[in-house]
């Protein structure tokens, strides 16, 4: 497949591994903060190819994993309204809320539809004028512009029954929080598709302020290995820069058109990240002139949320402080068919990928 197969060539991989082996001089710890990277690294068995002194840890890169439990509870309550249709991305349906999940509500008769796009949800609104269509907006800067475009189209076409329950987040504040709270790292494998939208310059503060090396990486095995090599070079040369490995999709300034859509519709706000608590200016909310699409403003709920109380250590895993196999529940009580924490639910969650793709030691 074009733009995929070329980057999975075994010979190229062997060359990159040889290059990495030649350049390794000490121990290195690199963190990736994108679910796509978590998945690719383990699916291709990359840890089995790397020398032992390179440690790869996963950060809060899975938007589903960092979505607060209260978001699920709110979505469930909205789904119980008699005239509501909930439109959601597939992974979200199995995430456990405090006492139920969207999947369980669907089985009990809730009108919950899986969509591949916010545009699909908009179509559902067009063809079901008597219903209230509530789209669950999750995802980082890769996904938020699409939601923004849908809101703009709703405004232009005067679609009155389309609403957003928003939990979109942006990456840099979470990455800064990680660094400030002491996660030990030499550098970041930066999220390639987030950077496609935002541009690589958003990571400059990590190199400048915190002196950590950054490489914006693609998602194919050769991309990831080349990025690891570039990070090793930076660390060896005591350099802290932001380099672009994924140049076929990422530039310094990014997709300015997508950014414009985002900033027209959204502004930043404080946001709860599961496992982290509230991080300031890390979430997106609808601007005043689009408030009529904000389901929480139009149909406010009255519920109390409780703190999570369990042995689940998703929080530590999301910060890269622990690995999934260090969780007492991992693969015993917490399994993909019956997940306790969000990291096990999402395809991109650290626990789910560790479980699916056990590495061959």
């Amino acid at each position, binding site marked *: 497949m074009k733009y995929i197969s070329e980057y999975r060539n075994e010979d190229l991989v062997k060359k990159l591994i040889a290059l990495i082996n030649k350049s390794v001089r000490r121990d290195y710890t690199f963190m990736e903060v994108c679910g796509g990277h978590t998945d690719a690294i383990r699916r291709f068995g990359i840890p089995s190819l790397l020398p032992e002194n390179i440690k790869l840890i996963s950060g809060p890169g899975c938007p589903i994993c960092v979505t607060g439990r209260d978001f699920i509870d709110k979505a469930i309550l909205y789904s119980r309204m008699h005239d509501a249709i909930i439109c959601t991305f597939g992974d979200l349906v199995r995430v456990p809320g405090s006492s139920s999940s969207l999947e369980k509500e669907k089985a009990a008769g809730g009108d919950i539809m899986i969509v591949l796009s916010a545009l699909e949800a908009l179509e559902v609104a067009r063809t079901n004028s008597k219903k209230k269509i509530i789209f669950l907006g999750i995802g980082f800067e890769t996904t938020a512009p699409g939601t923004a475009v849908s809101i703009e189209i709703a405004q232009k076409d005067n679609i009155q029954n389309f609403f957003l329950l928003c939990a979109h987040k942006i990456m840099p504040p979470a990455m800064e929080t990680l660094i400030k709270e002491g996660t030990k790292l030499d550098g970041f494998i930066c999220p390639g598709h987030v950077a496609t939208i935002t541009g690589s310059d958003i990571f400059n503060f990590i190199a400048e302020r915190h002196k950590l090396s950054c490489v914006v990486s693609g998602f194919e095995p050769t991309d990831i290995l080349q990025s690891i090599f570039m990070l090793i070079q930076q660390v060896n040369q005591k350099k802290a820069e932001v380099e672009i490995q994924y140049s076929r999709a990422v530039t310094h300034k990014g997709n300015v058109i997508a950014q414009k859509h985002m900033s027209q519709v959204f502004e930043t706000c404080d946001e709860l990240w599961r496992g982290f608590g509230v991080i300031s200016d890390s979430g997106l909310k609808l601007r005043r002139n689009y408030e009529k699409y904000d389901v929480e403003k139009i149909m406010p709920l009255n519920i109390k949320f409780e703190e999570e109380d369990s042995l689940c250590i998703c929080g530590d895993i999301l910060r890269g402080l622990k690995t999934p196999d260090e969780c007492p529940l991992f693969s015993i009580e917490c399994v993909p068919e019956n997940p306790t924490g969000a990291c096990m639910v999402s395809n991109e969650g650290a626990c789910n990928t560790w479980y699916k793709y056990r590495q*061959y030691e």
Partner: protein
Amino acid sequence: MNDLISLNHGSGGKLSRDLIEKVFAKKFSISEPLTDSAILINKGFTLAFTTDSYVVDPIFFPGGNIGKLAVCGTVNDLAVSGAVPKYLSASFIIEEGFPVNDLRTIAESMAAEALLAGVRIVTGDTKVVEKGKCDKLFITTSGIGLLDPDLEHISTAKRIKEGDKLIINGPIGNHAIAVLGAREKLNFNTPVVSDCASLNRLINNVLQQCNKIHFMRDVTRGGLATILNELSGMTRFGIMLNEDSIPVDEPVRGLCELLGFDPLYLANEGKILIAVGAGEETKVLNLLRSDPLGKESEIIGEIVPDKRSSVVLKTTIGGKRIVDLLSGQQLPRIC
């Protein structure tokens, strides 16, 4: 006959007889008188007997329908045990309001498939339930086959040895993706067609001409990964798989990349896994490849010594990871 099935068709009276005679018995060539059970006499053979229910959603999908599936699935279950499939029963649970024309189409598919496979549908049952009590149509088929006792090891894996080669008869994941594509709720068009097919003639050909066949199983729900884990669990061996050798059609691969599926866990309805003793794998491969249902057969791995009985995948880039029993995706009502 009316256009739609009503509860009266399930009452046992004249309308019931009409339904059975005019839709089912006629298509299956079951002659009068219709009796409660079919008596089948064979001398000195071991019987293989299997049963399966089919609840696939949607009922019609590219490459087949629930009826064709109900015949192929049960025929294949018999054939991979080493048996020659002979007779099927077919039971139908029909939702009130289901169009009779659709039933006719399904019965025709079943008859056609049974003819292809050389089996006879000799007995059956129909029930009609109120609207909402079943999702359009459920079918259960049971099958009897005649088994040469010398082939009993094919399903128990007793003869598996280190060095045995593993072969699959074509690309994986097509059935699951075809069914997923046909469900309107997910928005994409795919040229993928279900691989649903009766494999008994293909299998029989191999069994007649090769004597180092150590194991066979059809690769249905749970996919290739599930069968391989079952095999390594049944024996004290591990399995080494070569990702590059596992055939996957491009549209299936594209969809898996986009939706996060792993083809190793996707359902198939026309695929068998064969374990063959070292030295005979090329012969088996050539035999399979000479049949339309096996033209894309590949050797995908081998049996290796492994204390932990793991199934290990050598990835396309040369890395290694374990292929676990647990599925990545559960696609509901795929068969």
